[in-house]
């Protein structure tokens, strides 16, 4: 029904939202390279959810938005070590089939949607008590 916002303008919107800090407080994100015209690589952070083993930890992730974003979801790779089932323990890559918003991606989802959902994933009852690698270690 409404106009389809092209990739680059969508990413610019997300960038502005991220720069102004309009998003939810527990997650943030920004361009990895401020001169990359294609705006493909992003850094994200997730503040570990309270009442879980992740509380007070800050997790860094790399987000990659391909040329077909947002028709297809971004790929996510944890930089900070984290032990949860959706993250490959060798590479830190997030398995998109295990995260609902990535598996059933919609065009109006954003990088923020993904970060918030990952944070919620950490806080799930079955995940929030899994033992974690030492704080500050990276993949």
């Amino acid at each position: 029904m409404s106009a389809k916002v092209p990739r680059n303008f969508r990413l610019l919107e997300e960038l502005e939202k991220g720069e102004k800090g309009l998003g939810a407080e527990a997650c943030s994100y920004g361009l990895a390279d401020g001169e990359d015209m294609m705006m493909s690589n992003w850094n994200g952070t997730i503040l570990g959810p309270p009442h879980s083993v992740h509380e007070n930890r800050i997790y860094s992730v790399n987000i990659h938005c391909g040329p077909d974003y947002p028709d297809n979801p971004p790929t996510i790779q944890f930089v900070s070590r984290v032990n949860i089932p959706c993250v490959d323990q060798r590479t830190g890559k997030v398995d998109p089939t295990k995260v609902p918003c990535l598996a059933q991606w919609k065009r109006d989802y954003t990088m923020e949607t993904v970060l918030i959902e990952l944070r919620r994933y950490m806080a799930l009852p079955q995940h929030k008590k899994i033992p974690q690698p030492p704080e500050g270690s990276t993949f």
Partner: protein
Amino acid sequence: MALPKRIIKETERLMAEPYDYPHVPLTVFGASSDSLSLCISRVSGINAVPHEDNLRYFDVSIHGPAQSPYEGGIFRLELFLPDDYPMTPPKIRFLTKIYHPNIDRLGRICLDVLKNNWSPALQIRTILLSIQALLGAPNPDDPLANDVAQRWKDDEPAAIQTAKEWTRTHAMT
């Protein structure tokens, strides 16, 4: 929702702009991102072609104005008409790297008519001409790229030299 008539008309008029070389066939409509169509020069030095799969999204090229550091360069931009266009301005940015105090590293443009001074009586064509004029008259007092603006103020000849080099490197290939 169908494309508003205004957008259809604007597109038609853009496509009907006279060419510098009259023998060039007029069949570029919908040629989408094929850069060939953008290199064909229009008399005005501006060209905009809608994407086939999104008629609100345009590939744009602007020729650097004569007697400016951008002379001889062909700059590529992208333009998008949001839902409430023409009540709100088109979104537009440079895809070709350019050294200019009012254009930042991501190609975003600081131009009043693209923000508060937008009026629905303006159109794609007039906006592109304004951007072309901005290339001819940089305004370091209203900067978007702070470092470039500072350099422009401190050492204008050097800044112009850099702008020329960038034009040669990025806009003449």
